[in-house]
């Protein structure tokens, strides 16, 4: 089916990113922000691998190495600019007595985004260090035999969650200008590689003109310039949105905009009894129980002939797919009176709203049901339904409330906050600074590899092609992988090849 095909596709991409870039016999040194995102006093940056000692010396100076497994207060500075980044606690865990079994270090710094990204940047500037892929620390621990059998089961779930978080994050980024840029580069590089490969594999007998390589030369030089510029003003690039992405979705006129207004305590969205009032996504930043939330109200999902509304529905679906948490709003007056019919009814609703691509089970875990307009129901039905919902484990958490009277709001807020806290405590919910550091490392790799093309262009085309291939691999770590078959497709599309 189409749905399972989609699942397979996203699964494959995620699996490739995670698995193939994380060597089993890793000797790279990796680093990452290990503590959660959001407002926090202390952030923990973890380093693991043979260059951990170098990292520690590089950021805290050569004197006074901390005693193993003991906290030491140090000034932390950038190894090149010598600029002081923060003053914090550092730890030194020589292998094998560490979480990963390798030499490790930890930097406990103040939790502001500037400090954290400063430290990550500083680590990335050291030779032999690279940002960790999701789950890499845990996997190294696994390979070092540091995890017991029971922990492995948990690790499986964790990696699953990581994959999901990565996928959502990638979708979010891939919707923006930055993604457009990377995709464009990636396409141009793929084209370059295909043309070099065509020249190598078919240049001798076929009508592939030498001019093809001149085009590649130009493209490579142009790409190098663009990547350098981007690396130098990368920080001014796209503003990556921080915070948990919460999306309100549901059928038309279920009261989605009313819920947004209730949560904002101000009319951010226009509310009317006419179905289809909200046609575009309305976004607002909120602080809910101390957690940063980017709340979006979306157009009601329904079949419509109105072109504007159709676009709204499309955007709504896109938004739901990118969300960390979806609030599915249902008009409670349409609930069947027989409580036994309620799960089927709500199930059908969820199916209509949630994306099918990622596996329904997964979507359900990132969703809260809001049964609005409880004020229009008879009191005894409200009670009966709420009791029934509370003890029905097959459904996501569900709250019966009235946006009109605020009745049931407290109950809903408790359930919302508990979801937010588990999302924010999750270090994987997507930290822009971490993502940025990863991107920078891969872009730098890409830039250097293009140098190899130029170095070998006239000496050895196989080694020159290798450079373009490496560049594409670097970029592929950001945008998704490019395989040999894609290259061949371009070759056959662009050239007339044959004996």
């Amino acid at each position: 089916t189409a749905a399972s095909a989609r699942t397979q596709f996203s699964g494959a991409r995620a699996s490739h990113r995670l698995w193939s870039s994380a060597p089993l016999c890793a000797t790279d040194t990796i680093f990452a922000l290990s503590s959660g995102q959001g407002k926090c006093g202390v952030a923990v940056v973890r380093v693991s691998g043979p260059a951990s000692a170098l990292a520690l010396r590089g950021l805290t100076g050569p004197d006074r190495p901390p005693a193993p497994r003991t906290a030491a207060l140090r000034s932390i500075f950038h190894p090149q600019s010598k600029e002081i980044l923060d003053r914090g606690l550092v730890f030194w865990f020589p292998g094998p007595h560490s979480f990963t079994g390798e030499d490790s270090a930890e930097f406990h710094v103040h939790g502001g985004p500037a400090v954290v990204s400063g430290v990550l940047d500083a680590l990335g500037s050291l030779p032999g260090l690279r940002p960790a892929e999701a789950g890499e620390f845990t996997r190294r621990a696994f390979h070092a035999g540091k995890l017991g059998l029971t922990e492995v089961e948990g690790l499986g779930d964790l990696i699953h969650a990581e994959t999901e978080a990565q996928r959502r994050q990638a979708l979010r980024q891939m919707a923006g200008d930055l993604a457009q840029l990377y995709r464009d580069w990636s396409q141009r590089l793929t084209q370059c590689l295909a043309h070099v490969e065509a020249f190598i594999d078919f240049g001798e007998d076929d009508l592939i003109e030498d001019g093809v390589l001149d085009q590649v030369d130009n493209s490579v030089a142009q790409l190098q310039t663009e990547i350098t510029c981007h690396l130098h003003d990368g920080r001014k690039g796209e503003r990556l949105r921080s915070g948990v992405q919460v999306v309100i979705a549901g059928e038309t006129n279920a009261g989605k905009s009313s819920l947004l207004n209730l949560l904002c305590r101000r009319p951010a969205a226009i509310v009317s009894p006419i179905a289809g009032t909200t046609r575009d996504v309305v976004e607002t930043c909120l602080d809910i129980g101390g957690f940063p939330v980017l709340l979006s109200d979306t157009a009601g999902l329904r079949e419509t002939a109105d072109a504007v509304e159709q676009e709204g529905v499309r955007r709504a679906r896109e938004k739901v797919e990118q969300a960390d948490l979806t609030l599915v709003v249902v008009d409670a007056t349409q609930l069947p009176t027989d409580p036994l019919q309620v799960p089927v009814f709500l199930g059908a609703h969820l199916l209509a709203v949630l994306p099918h691509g990622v596996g329904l089970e997964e979507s359900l875990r990132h969703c809260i049901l809001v049964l609005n307009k409880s004020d229009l129901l008879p009191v005894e039905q409200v009670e009966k339904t709420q009791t029934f919902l509370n003890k029905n484990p097959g459904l996501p958490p569900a709250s019966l409330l009235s946006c009109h009277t605020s009745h049931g709001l407290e109950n809903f807020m408790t359930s919302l906050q508990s979801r937010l806290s588990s999302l924010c405590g999750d270090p994987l919910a997507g930290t822009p600074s971490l993502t940025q550091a990863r991107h920078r490392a891969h872009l730098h790799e890409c830039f250097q590899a293009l140098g190899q093309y130029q170095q070998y262009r006239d000496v050895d085309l196989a080694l020159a092609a290798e450079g373009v291939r490496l560049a594409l691999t670097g970029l592929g770590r950001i945008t998704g992988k490019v395989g040999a078959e894609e290259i061949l497709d371009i070759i056959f599309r662009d050239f007339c090849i044959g004996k």
Partner: protein
Amino acid sequence: MLARRVLNRPRSLASPSSWAASARTVTACDVIVVGGGHAGTEAAAAATRVGAETLLVTQKIQTIGALSCNPSLGGVGKGQLVREVDALDGLMGRAGDWAGVHFSILNRSKGPAVWGPRAQLDRPRYRQFIQAELLSMPRLTVVEGSVEELLVSEPDPEKPGKHRVTGVRMADTGRIILARSVVLTTGTFLSGSLFMGQTTSPGGRMGDPPSGSGLSRSLKEVLGLRLGRLRTGTPPRIFKRSVDLSLAQLQLPDQRPTPFSFISNGTHCKPEEQLPCYLINTTPGVERVVRESLHLNSHIQQDTRGPRYCPSIESRVLRFPGRQHQVRLLREIPALRKAEIQAPGYGVQYDFVCPTQLFPSLEVRSAQGLFLAGQINGTTGYEEAAAQGVWAGVSAGRRALSLPPLSLSRTQSYIGVLIDDLVGRGITEPYRMFTSRAEFRTSLRPDNADLRLTLKGYCDIGCVSPRRYEEAVRMKAGLSEALSALQDITLSPTRWREKLPQAAVSANKSGIMSAEEVLQYKDVSFEMLASAFPDVLGPYVEFAERLKIEAMYRPHCEKQRREIERILQEESLSLPQDVDYLSLPVSLSQEVRELLDRVRPATLGAASRLPGMTPAAILHLLNYITRTPQRDRSAERSSTPDPQNLSDESRDSFPCVPVSQ
């Protein structure tokens, strides 16, 4: 279980048909190879080299080793395959050196990793060489005949597979021949149809009787294999005397022909006696004729998949109108205005077995003892066929001798890339080798195929003769001595400039440089260094070209080594082939279970490359492999295991042990 036995028959092969027609109705051998094309000949020879009593069944002994399409061997990517087949002691490289009349290295200017050794061949001479080799090979019998069906019995319960192939039944006599392994290399003969213009007739090659309809049925209906259909074509042959060569573009061979084989002392054809080639381009008139006669061409009108990289003139005109194309014949072409056709061109459509149904040993997953190689697996090209043939022959022979199966990694050889692509991804068009398919091509070079394969071929695989092995050992020792000698010569850049005034050793390199580093310079050759240091380097001049290449690539190959190690490590984690994924007591989603059950990846590496596989599932599988003792795993295969066979035999549940690095 079939007992091993030795054929009691005269070794003389002068009258093989008398053997075939002998009164006995049931005979037996270790390996039967069906088909005498490039895959079949290499398979039969390889099985024999491994030590198996082998029987090669072919329609006509006189067409063994025929070059049915172009008389050309090697090229970019394909040349690497020829070198690797040779490194495993196959026939093709030596046959090419014997029969070649025009040798050239393609891509000479593009770097030694992508050099494409190629030769134009003399057809009869190539056939003669292959036939002479096969007909004099010990342990090998060649018989003429057609195989009507495969004999299938209950599988060995200790091994994966639903059936077991135990031999073949011959078409003409109905005679039954039993064997522990059967290799099918039927090329385009599996339900083949020939197309010429609007006429269609059954057959796999012009001039040969059709065959294989019974085999097609055996594969499809008895074994339940998925088949697909492909098309290919071959050009018309014209008489040289009828071509106006003055209107053609002359292509000369290399002045010093480079032999394919690591053990050939040179080519049979003398350098100065090589023949030139002629290149002729199409004209706009050709395009017009093709378009006007398209309705008369039923081969191209059908939508069977043909190769994109070797398209027919018709497909090309349709896809890239307005361009000039190279073709061999059409009267619209000035040089061919008076061309006389010796044999017309024709198209072929044929069945292939979707190769994802094979193990990396080229054994059919569901049919124990049945191996497939060549076009039957959806490939095209002599070299691709020969490469699979060698490996299927090795695997079939090893199975017959109860040796564990082996696989070649894609990090070690183009043969490994070819087989991994086929069994791991399957095909949608006839598969041809390109250098761009090999992600480690700077390590998998034509010059070092002997170091990569010959040593293993002797020590681990058992398909290489002592003579070749000794030569490879000598070469390896010579190269590594020479490389250390190069590394030991160290001078400052200034001194280097004095020593080698003709080379632009750059001044910006600070410190000391070794002779190996200097050899990386484009304009420095080993001979130059050897004349500067005759005492130290003089003894190694015979390795000059290989040393230059080694020095150029070594830094890059070092960088690749880690990635290669990672892949090898994943590939060394074999997944049991007969495990019941649907009930495995491991936390896996239903989708992943079904995927694993359907594809049955041979290794963890292959599993992680599957579309739809999740990282969490890989982790659980990894945990399963590394934590579950083998004994328990084999117990999960069947509810009533035979305790006697569990201990040693359980290793057989791994379809392939990678050949060690």
